[in-house]
């Protein structure tokens, strides 16, 4: 008879190559993760800072919650203010906003792939694998050739944001009535040039195939060229798939709970909840549970939420609240968007639940789909037509509004109450707040906490599979606790 395996506690932190501060406590038994606690160890107080200020100040302050999802926060804040003022953006401004938001999402997906996620496969722990040499050459942290190439391509791609929004991150170009930078004919043509150059890098190196082919992948069989020995297989996507199949990344980091998308780009990626099929999303069913967060107060919908830190609260282990939809944790991100959008490959890969491979493939397929869509949006810009209309002053306004957007990492919501022309309440629920939430009052762990259970950890103190699972969510901790 075997004696019961002792449980050992392992604290992983600082958890690097993620955006922001993260610490993970693992209970390990029988060489696997038995339970996990995900902690956000930084609190900055943005919601409190916004209270009492003129509503327009949110356009300066809210984007600075996050340096990697800055435009997403600009868009959420501007949509909330537009709702308060009862205006719609000018058509050109709407297109320009879509363009810079898509650019940020694509750039973030690339940063994640090249700098955060792939370098783990270049670690010495994998030195016996056939693909290891290639992973080192391409993706070794701060040294990989593919990483350097993708970082350079990303930098030149972000010229599109320079042209349409002045700079990245932290622009004020996105206003409730549109965008402040009007584009002339030359400017519009330059945008097409930026996209063309970027497409070439993606097709030559990242995918080894035309973007149209990647966007249209309709099932796992379609991946055969990337797993064979043709030109597709020599792409970075091919290297990832080879590694993924060798290590069974599809079976790692499993989550079979619901997936949620707020919807993006005028129905290109529809809103909804995926739970064994598409369902309607009830925004009224969102509530933030504070039971395990260093926060005082009770569970509330974000429209009525409060943020009052309580650093000494018993039983708490994170600054992150625990948002729930109808009382359940949900996963958000590119995977949820592509499931709701009916992308056939992604639906096939995540048919029985999500995992590391499906999350990464969803991001890469989304890069292809977004760049193709951006090419059309650039052609839709109308130089000489207005880009922005004024927002009527909100000096006497009272009301409760919300601004919703899909950031790279998933649904982002700003819930704003204005009283007598001042911000009375400002609540932000970010994508990683959903994915990396702590336990709720019923003791139900958040999505990452659940996805980590069962992950191999025999190579403690630095279990590499845990790294893959955590990074597969592409966490943004800066947003999580603002």
């Amino acid at each position, binding site marked *: 008879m075997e004696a019961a395996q002792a449980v050992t506690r392992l604290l992983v*932190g600082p958890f*690097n190559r993620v955006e922001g501060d993260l610490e993970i406590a693992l209970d390990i038994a029988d060489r696997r993760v038995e339970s996990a606690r995900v902690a956000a160890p930084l609190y*900055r107080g943005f919601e*409190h800072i916004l209270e009492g200020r003129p509503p327009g100040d949110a356009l300066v302050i809210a984007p600075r919650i996050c340096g990697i999802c800055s435009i997403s926060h600009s868009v959420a804040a501007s949509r909330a203010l537009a709702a308060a003022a009862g205006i719609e953006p000018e058509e050109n401004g709407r297109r320009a906003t879509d363009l810079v938001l898509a650019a940020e999402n694509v750039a973030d997906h690339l940063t994640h792939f090249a700098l955060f996620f792939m370098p783990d496969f270049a670690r010495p722990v994998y030195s016996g694998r056939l693909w290891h040499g290639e992973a080192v050459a391409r993706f070794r942290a701060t040294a990989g050739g593919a990483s350097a190439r993708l970082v350079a391509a990303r930098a030149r791609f972000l010229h599109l944001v320079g042209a349409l929004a002045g*700079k990245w991150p932290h622009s004020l170009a996105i206003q409730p009535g549109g965008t402040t*930078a009007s584009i002339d004919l030359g400017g519009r043509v330059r945008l097409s040039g930026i996209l063309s150059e970027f497409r070439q890098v993606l097709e030559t190196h990242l995918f080894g195939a035309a973007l149209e082919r990647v966007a249209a992948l309709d099932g796992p069989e379609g991946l055969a060229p990337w797993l064979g020995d043709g030109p597709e297989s020599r792409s970075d996507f091919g290297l990832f798939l080879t590694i993924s199949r060798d290590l069974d990344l599809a079976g790692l980091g499993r989550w079979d709970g619901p997936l949620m998308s707020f919807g993006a780009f005028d129905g290109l990626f529809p809103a909804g909840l995926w739970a064994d099929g598409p369902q309607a999303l009830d925004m009224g069913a969102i509530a933030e549970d504070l039971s395990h967060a260093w926060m005082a107060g009770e569970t509330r919908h974000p429209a009525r939420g409060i943020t009052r830190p309580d650093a000494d609260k018993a039983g708490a282990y994170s600054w992150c609240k625990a948002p729930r939809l109808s009382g359940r944790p949900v996963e958000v991100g590119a995977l949820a968007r592509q499931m709701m959008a009916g992308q056939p490959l992604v639906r096939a890969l995540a048919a029985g639940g999500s995992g590391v491979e499906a999350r990464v493939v969803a991001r890469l397929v989304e890069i292809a789909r977004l760049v193709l869509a951006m090419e059309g949006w650039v052609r839709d810009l109308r130089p000489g037509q207005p880009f*922005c209309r004024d927002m009527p002053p909100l000096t006497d306004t009272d009301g409760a509004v919300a601004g919703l957007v899909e950031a790279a990492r998933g649904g982002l919501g700003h819930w704003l109450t204005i009283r007598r022309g001042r911000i009375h309440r400002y609540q932000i629920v970010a994508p990683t707040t959903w994915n990396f939430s702590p336990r709720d009052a019923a003791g139900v762990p958040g999505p990452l906490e659940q996805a980590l259970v069962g992950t191999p950890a025999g190579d403690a103190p630095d279990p590499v599979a845990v790294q893959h699972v955590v990074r597969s969510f592409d966490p943004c901790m800066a947003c999580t606790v603002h």
Partner: protein
Amino acid sequence: MSRDFTILWLQAASCGGCTMSALGAGDRGLVAMLAQYGIRLLWHPSLSEEGGMQARAMLEAAAAGTAPFDCLCVEGAILRGPGGSGRFQILGGTGRPMAEWVRALAAKAAVTVAVGTCAAYGGIPAAGDNPTQATGLQWSGEVSGGLLGRDWRSPAGLPVINVAGCAPHPGWVIETLAALAEGALSESDLDPLGRPLFFAGRLAHHGCARNEFYEFKASAEHWSDGGCLMENLGCKATQAAGDCNLRAWNGGGSCTNAGYPCVACTSPGFEEPGAPFLETPKLAGIPVGLPLDMPKAWFMALAALSKSATPERVRRNAHADHVAVPPVWRPRKP
């Protein structure tokens, strides 16, 4: 260079935006740009392979002085709350407040650089009633002191170098670090707020594409108008340090060229302008924040004169979101 100049980079209470901005440096990225000056990132939370125990061991050795390094870069404000404990930011896996780590590591680095306005002066987290007791490394807003104290000097004898900006231009970061690696940056190269003069010696206004509108006080009144943003839309570029409009941001952009006001993000206290960010405060119809180094009466006299001399082209283009009236062409006399 005989050996690499090594950098240890910490993210305090930051949004990560300074690093994200720097990833666009020179269209090649932070690592590649630093390498060409012989600078190596010993550890960076977003970019390095080592995490967890390896990272902790490396930080402990650096703080103990057993693993020497040249430069500490800190991005983000230092949180001293709640109640002076620093617990609003614990460096993951260590149980120690980030404030303690920064203090310990700054004592060992030859030089310490505050990357961004948060690390320099406190920045946005210090806004309002400063709920987290955020501070900069050697300044709290406009008050000298901060975490390290007014008289603090690095082992190499330098105060904290403040590469202010929210986020700073990637060139400011790279060039500051390159100059330090070369040993070419001394205290006399800094302005009174600790910012390198090579960028802080200019005003954000210099080189603004709207300068012709400024000359004539032909002012934008609505978003995406072509005119000068100073009179109505809150632009502080005539008071804010930075060669912002003499450099290309993300390939060619800048705040004012993209049609929105400078919020003086390189300045201590920019987070509390005392008025809405997107409006110019006025007294009796006259903007309060006029250029700092010009007699007000002269400014008013010149403004009145130039307003009455404004060409029709400038007047109309100031209120259009595209060029409504192009420059006049006159054929040469035969």
